[in-house]
Every structure is written in structure tokens, then in C-alpha cells.
């Protein structure tokens, strides 16, 4: 039981961390609240399903192709629908909502609303204290950690990462220092959507694929981001694991818990916000006037 809780909590936590970091990156750099973020995650899952089932491509290759394709779709959507109206925050907000709905409906049209699944990459399981842990779960967890480490390296060790971080800190000054703000925003969008696609690829062998699969992660992702502090990577990371573990605790321990999992996670978020309005690791950043 405890092992089950920990395993599923860690896996959920890593997926939420992947999603939340992408979401918080694009918010930090371009001030875009991208509701469609998890819709890209759903599209990536569908791409992998299509490639493996309909075209018979090897799953690993399918995942790589899906990540590339979804990143491309994300960039096209950004250029077409979001970039022209960046000045109007409310408009951007609904543009992303509308994008998410459009993607959901397109997937519904192509694949119908059936619950689909993708076979695990590796079969078999490990036994620890009489508890079965599928190798797939371990693989998912390991890959997620690896990607998180990769993002960390990208942000802290490369020039692009430096540009992203400085733009997030102060857009105008970054622009004055010779960084092309709109290019940085574009690159960040690519990284952010890529991360969402990665999250989709990582989670797809463990979950079912259906057109509404973006809703629950969206809510959890937002809770994670708010809990950890907007724009704080460490915050997103810690917040994701806190909420992931809380969610699986509720599901396993409380009767009717599956209904309450969202409620409990969100209540934790609100409680933390009451004590620290800027989130766990957020910096109360200067009001932009």
C-alpha cells in the first residue's frame, strides 16, 4: 500500500513537474497563460497512438516524431493566433482556451471519444516487499527525472537558458541588452510545448488516451504552478511532488477518494496561498505598472 502510494505519487508528480515547468516558463518569459498547454500533451499522446497502432512504427521512434511534430504545431499556433494579439492579455487567454477546445474537438473527430491505449515499452515487473512495480513505471519515472535534469541544464548552462531567465526577470532590460524578445519568446514556446509533448510521451504507456485527458492535468498543473510560485522552477518541482503524493494518498486512503483527489490537492494549494500569497518559492515580484 505505502509503496503503491509512493510510486504513483512520484510518477504523477514527475508528470506534473514536466507540465508545470513548461507552463511556468512561457508565463515567465511572455506573460502568456497558456491554457492549451496540456492540450499539446494530449495531442502528443494521440500522435504516439497513431504512429504505433496505425503505422506500426516502433514506439520510441514514434515518441520522438510526436515530440517534434507537436513542437512544430505549437509554434505554428503561437505564430498564427497568439503572437498577433500579445498586447491584449484577456484576448490571449481566450485564444488559448479556444485553441485547447479546437484541438480537443479535432481529436474527437479523428479518433472518436473512445478510450485508447498504447502498449508499455518494457514488460515485466520488479518485486519490492511483495509489491509489484512494473518496469514501465520505473522507466517513466527515470525518463521524467532525466528530462527535468536536461531542462535544468538548458536553463542554467546555455546561452539560450540565460536569455530565457533574463527575459523572465525583466523583459524591457533584456531587450535593451540586445536580446531579441520575440525570438526568445518563440524559443521558450518551443521548449514549453516540447516539454508538454515529452510529458505526453512519458505518460502515454501508463494511462488511457482520450480527448478529455487534458482537463485534469491542466487543473493540477495550475495548482502546482500557483503552489510553487509562478516562474519558480524549484517551486514547480517541489509543488508537483507535493500535489502528486497528496493526490495518490487521497485516492488510496479515502473512500470515494477518486472524486476528491482534485479537491484535496486544490485545498492544499489554497491553504498554502493563505499563508504565503506568492507560493512556496515564489518571489513577490514587483507590480508591473
Amino acid at each position, binding site marked *: 500500500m505505502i509503496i503503491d502510494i509512493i510510486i504513483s505519487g512520484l510518477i504523477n508528480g514527475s508528470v506534473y513537474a514536466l507540465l508545470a515547468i513548461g507552463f511556468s516558463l512561457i*508565463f515567465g518569459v511572455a506573460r502568456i*497563460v497558456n*491554457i492549451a498547454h496540456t492540450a499539446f500533451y494530449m495531442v502528443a499522446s494521440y500522435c504516439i497512438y497513431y504512429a504505433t497502432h496505425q503505422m506500426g512504427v516502433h514506439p520510441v521512434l514514434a515518441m520522438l516524431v510526436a515530440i517534434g511534430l507537436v513542437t512544430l504545431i505549437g509554434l505554428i499556433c503561437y505564430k498564427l*493566433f497568439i503572437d*498577433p*494579439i500579445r*498586447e*491584449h492579455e*484577456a*484576448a490571449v*487567454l*481566450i*485564444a488559448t*482556451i*479556444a*485553441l485547447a*477546445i*479546437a484541438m*480537443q*474537438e*479535432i481529436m*474527437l*473527430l479523428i479518433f472518436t471519444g473512445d478510450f485508447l491505449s498504447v502498449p508499455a515499452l518494457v514488460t515485466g515487473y520488479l518485486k519490492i516487499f511483495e509489491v509489484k512495480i512494473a518496469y514501465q513505471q520505473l522507466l517513466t519515472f527515470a525518463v521524467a527525472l532525466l528530462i527535468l535534469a536536461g531542462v535544468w541544464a538548458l536553463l542554467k548552462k546555455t546561452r539560450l537558458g540565460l536569455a530565457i531567465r533574463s527575459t523572465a526577470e525583466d523583459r524591457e532590460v533584456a531587450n535593451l541588452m540586445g536580446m531579441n524578445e520575440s525570438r526568445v519568446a518563440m524559443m521558450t514556446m518551443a521548449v514549453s510545448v516540447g516539454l508538454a509533448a515529452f510529458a505526453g510521451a512519458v505518460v502515454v504507456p501508463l494511462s488511457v488516451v482520450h480527448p478529455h485527458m487534458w*482537463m485534469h492535468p*491542466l*487543473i493540477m498543473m*495550475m*495548482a502546482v*504552478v*500557483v503552489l510553487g510560485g*509562478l516562474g519558480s522552477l524549484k517551486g514547480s518541482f517541489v509543488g508537483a511532488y507535493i500535489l502528486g503524493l497528496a493526490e495518490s494518498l487521497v485516492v488510496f486512503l479515502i473512500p*470515494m477518494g477518486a*472524486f*476528491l*483527489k*482534485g*479537491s*484535496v490537492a*486544490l*485545498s492544499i*494549494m*489554497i491553504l498554502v*496561498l*493563505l499563508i504565503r*500569497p*506568492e*507560493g512556496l518559492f515564489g518571489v513577490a515580484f514587483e*507590480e508591473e*505598472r
Partner: protein
Amino acid sequence: MAVAGFYLRRLYTIFKGEVLVLPSRVVVFLFFLVVLFLPIVTQDPYLLRILILTSIFAILAASWDLLSGFTGQLNFGHALFFGVGAYTSALLNLHARIPPSGSIPLGALGAVLAGLIIGIPCLRLRGTYLALTTLAFPIILMGIVFAIPDITGGELGVSGLDRLSRSRVSDYYITVVLMLGLCTIMWKITDSNTGVIFHAIREDELAVRTAGINTTRYKLLAFSLSGFFAGIAGGLYAHFMRIAGPSTLEVSMSFTVVIWAVFGGIVTIYGPVGAVFILFPVLEFLRFWPEFRMLMFAVVILFILLYMPDGLLPWLRDKIEEECPRCKIRNVATRKTCRVCTAPLD
């Protein structure tokens, strides 16, 4: 007779001077006329049903605008007020046997309470934090609804409520008159001193505080006012559909309200109302292609936003009317000079 003629002539002069001078006022006047006299022309129950639902959602969208448009407190969980209003009036009607005329206002009071409860923690948050936090509340409530199916009916909701009234036509008049009345009240509120303060809070909260105004009190007032109107919409919806289900609390419900309001143009009150009256019937008539319905809805919104990011109705209004550069009074776009101060318009 002469006296009646005098008043009639005076009424006509006022009408000519105040309503006919501006196309937007003519449109609003025609809208009132059409909506009020429609049942004389047709009593098609399906059409009336669509218009009843449209009116209910128009109240909801306008109440979102009152809170989020005017005070800038971006609320992503507006479904909470709607759902609380619907569930409260449904439960009161079913268990305490209070008729709709009592249960709807009580449901609205429940929504005001909800507004105060979520308003207090949300006062410390702003902008995106606030938006993302408010999104959480209806989901928390929905979890609770599902967890105690004995009281709330779980997934099936509370059903078997009293009808709003005996016939479809009187249902229509109740909702439409309420819609027109409440939206006018909301518009008047935003036009009053309170509304100006709301607007100022949106622009610069710090400056408002510096002017000695208790912004906390005004923000809470905005939350409870908006909750009240949305709660009435929820109660009407519950009694008209005769069921209060978890669909009233869904995330997509909150998102739809935001879409309506921003599509019509925020900070206007008439914008969201107009948007609902355009989008909701259009969406109903698209039922011939049910599978493309939501997709087309989303695509239309994406493209309209590209060309009119401030919303549809303000964009249209700017096309047909022009603001006088000197006295800031609006004029028909065809005029060469201002109708009040005769300054040249360009």
C-alpha cells in the same frame, strides 16, 4: 386631450434627442422591443427555450464582466456562483418546499456567501495567481458534490424541481424581464460612483488606495455583487431545466463564460450580453452538424480575436460611432461636426 398630446410630443422629443441620435442606442432600443414582443409573433417552444437559456447565460456573462472586467479581478471560477445558486435553490425547493420566487433569491444569497468566502482569501492575490486560484473553487465544490451523493445526487444532480411558472411563455417573460432588468442594474452600477471606483481598481489599485479608498471593501463588494447576479442566473437555470447537476460547476462552464465575455468585449456589460445573444443561438442552430459544433465555435473565436482583440461589440460600435475629440461625446460616424459642441470630427 391637449395635455396628453403635449406629453406625447415631449416624450417623442426626448426619444428623438436621446435614442435616435446614436445607432448603438437605437440597436439597444430595438433589442428591448424585439425581445419583449417576440411571443406575440411566434410561440414556438423550441425558440422560446433557446431564448430563455440565452437570457440566463446573458445574466451570467454580464455578472462576470462586472467582477472581472471592471475590477480586473480575473475570475476563472465563475461557475462556482452559478453552481452554488443552482444547488442552493434546488435543495431549498426540494426539501423546504420553497417556491421558485423564494428559492431563487435565497440561492443568490448563497452565491453571495460563496463570493465572500472565496473573496477573502483571494484578496491577497492578484492577476494570474487570482485567476488560477479561483479556478480551483468550483472543482473543490464539485469533488464535494460527488463525495456526498446522498444530499446532492452525485452525478445525477438534484432533479424534480418546481417549474418556474405554468407555461413556456410566462417562463419566457420571467427570464427575459429579469435579464433586461438585472443587466440594466449592472450597467447602472458600473456607471455610478462605485463603478468608477471598480474601474480605478482595475487600472491602478495602489493609486486608489492612496486616494483614501478602502479597496478591500470594494473588491469584496464586487465579489458579492457578481455572485448575487450569477446566483440568480443559477437559480433560474435550475428551475427552468428542473435539475441542478454537476455540469453547472464544470471547468468548461467557467471557460465558456470567459469566452462569451471577452468575445463580446469586456468592461462594457452590453458586450457580454450581446455576445451571448449572438453565440448561444448560433451554437444551437449548428446542431445539424453536432460533431463540428464546438470546433467551429473555437475556430470562429480564434479568428474574430485576431481582428478584434477588444471584442466584437466595441469594435462594431467604433465603426458606426465616433467620439468627439473636444467634449468626448459620441456621434454617428457620418457626422462632420459634433452634435453638442460642433467641433469638427475627423
